């Protein structure tokens, strides 16, 4: 997408966030749902098709633009980004990387128009370790039959379509070739969605189990038309997903810091605003420094990804830093709010709870540290 169009869009998005989304947060907190009117507006604005190529009805953003948009978007409560993120992140990316022409022509325009997607990898007994995956897809006549349970699936209660990873071979094969990806319309017979899980934060975004019992799918439901590619497609999507979560953490840290900045100027102690006290100023400055560092890391990783570089390590590094940074910032923000920071009446405690997930999903800090180190050691060994 041309940069002038991108800037014009960013300007509109910023306004939309401040004039519509932030004022709607109270209703989201009360009802646990994004208001229907807001969902319709987000669809109209094109927020579900940011990364869908133009020829399929989307905006065709590159990775830098997508990551910057996620950062802007995350100035509002996390549920708004979350409901669009599976579309523009993993699922769109999987279709682009692995879909047949017919699959792209069928699904990308529907995703861009705002049909909501889920991505089913995690199970009760497995996550990133695909060897333990239990969900099976068995050939039957001209099609497939799926059985199994997927857990912690974002958007499951209101998804129109899910991309489900299932094993097409009993044995675990090298390079995860026992896993394939299936396009599953959520109204297919045999699918039930569990109760929405209660969470620490991120009000308005929903995760639930997807249970599949003898779900019959046509032959062309397998992504790419080929067995054994599912995990590879999924993993390819993860770099973008990690940068996207890093961007979400960074945008939300900015929101929290702006809120603390306002509070520190309003709240008085010893007859003057607490912003005048140097220990408060240190917390403000440290937060500003760290947010800036995260922004730079994300911009750099995204620029490299657009240039075709393998950013596995850098995307992981940016995600780890940004999410841990966000945790430190929201902690300081509660501290700046003082006693008010512990009360549900003020925003600070909600920021604190909402931010906690960023260090966990799309790869925990720990698994990403292991990955970064693994690649460092591998490179060292190759050079030695």
């Amino acid at each position, binding site marked *: *997408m*041309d940069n*002038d*169009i991108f800037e*014009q*869009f960013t*300007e*509109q998005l910023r*306004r*939309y966030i401040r004039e*519509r989304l932030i004022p709607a947060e109270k209703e989201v907190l009360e009802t646990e749902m994004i208001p229907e009117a807001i969902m319709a*507006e987000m669809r*109209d*604005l*094109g*927020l579900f*098709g*940011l990364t869908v190529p*133009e020829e399929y*009805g989307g*905006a065709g953003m590159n990775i830098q633009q997508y990551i910057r948009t996620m950062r802007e978007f995350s100035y509002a409560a996390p549920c708004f980004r979350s409901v669009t993120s599976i579309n523009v992140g993993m699922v769109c990316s999987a279709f682009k990387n692995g879909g047949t022409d017919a699959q792209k022509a069928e699904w990308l325009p529907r995703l861009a128009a705002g049909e909501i997607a889920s991505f089913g990898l995690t199970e009760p007994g497995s996550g990133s370790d695909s060897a333990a995956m239990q969900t099976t897809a068995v050939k039957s006549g001209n099609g497939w039959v799926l059985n199994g349970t997927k857990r912690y699936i974002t958007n499951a209660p209101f998804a129109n379509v899910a991309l489900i990873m299932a094993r097409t071979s009993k044995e675990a094969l090298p390079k995860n070739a026992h896993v394939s990806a299936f396009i599953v319309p959520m109204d297919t017979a045999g699918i039930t969605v569990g109760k929405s899980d209660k969470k620490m934060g991120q009000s308005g975004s929903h995760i639930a189990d997807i249970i599949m019992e003898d779900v019959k799918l046509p032959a062309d439901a397998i992504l790419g038309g080929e067995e054994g590619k599912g995990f590879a497609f999924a993993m390819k999507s993860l770099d973008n997903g990690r940068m996207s979560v890093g961007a979400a953490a960074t945008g939300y840290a900015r929101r929290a810091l702006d809120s603390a900045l306002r509070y520190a100027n309003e709240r008085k102690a010893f007859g003057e605003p607490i912003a005048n006290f140097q220990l408060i100023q240190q917390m403000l400055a440290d937060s500003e420094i760290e947010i800036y560092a995260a922004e730079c890391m994300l911009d750099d990783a995204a620029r490299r990804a657009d240039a075709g570089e393998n950013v596995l390590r850098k995307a992981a590094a940016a995600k780890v830093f940004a999410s841990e940074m966000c945790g430190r910032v929201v902690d300081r923000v509660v501290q700046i709010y003082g006693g008010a920071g512990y009360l549900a009446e003020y925003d600070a405690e909600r920021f604190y709870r909402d931010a906690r997930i960023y260090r966990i999903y799309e790869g925990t800090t720990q698994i990403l540290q292991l990955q970064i180190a693994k690649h460092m050691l591998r490179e060292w060994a190759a050079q030695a």
Partner: protein
Amino acid sequence: MKIIVPVKRVIDYNVKPRVKPDGSGVDLANVKMSMNPFDEIAVEEALRLREKGVATEVIAVSIGPDKAQETLRTALAMGADRAILVVAEDVEPLAVAKILAKVMDEEQPGLVILGKQAIDDDSNQTGQMLAALTGRPQGTFANTVNVSGDEVHVAREVDGGLQTVALKMPAIITTDLRLNEPRYASLPNIMKAKSKPLAQKTPADYGVDVSPRLKTLKVVEPPVRSAGIKVADVDALVAKLKEIGVAA
């Protein structure tokens, strides 16, 4: 029917304006600019009339610097069909009205919908001047607009409430704040706007002299309100009011 919507590039409504140290005007260096909010309401009203099938084409016009192109692109992204930019710096309401009168001659619109005023100079003159120059009826401070046949009914916001006037078209309307809530430009429409036609003109093309007739003598910041004082009781309050001459 065509609708012309003039739009102005002004200092963004969220920006706190600062006066230049020499008092010659407001400092606009590196300041965020956007479409005058009343003009956004005008664009929205025109688009709604088109969507209702009352109008067939919405033309956005800006008289201003080169950069006013961005403002026109915003109008196009909201949904206007095409745009005209008349490049001129520091134009006053009368010059703008004269150019708009010529544009009306050329385009023969059924309605011209303007913002009631721009938030930078708060002149609130252009619509009225345009009506006078063209001899067409005007409905200013519009709260509601309804087109029926060759007439447009405009409910105007006046001090006592609403006053509805019936105008023979072509007519001039200026928008008040409560007429509508302007839409956000969607990403697909922002992308489409890029290929919509934007014509570039100069005041000379319309034979209009835009040289300023007004001179700004001095611009100053509003005086800062000084803090109040607390009084102990009603007696002290009355005494204080007498002291400053407010109560006898």
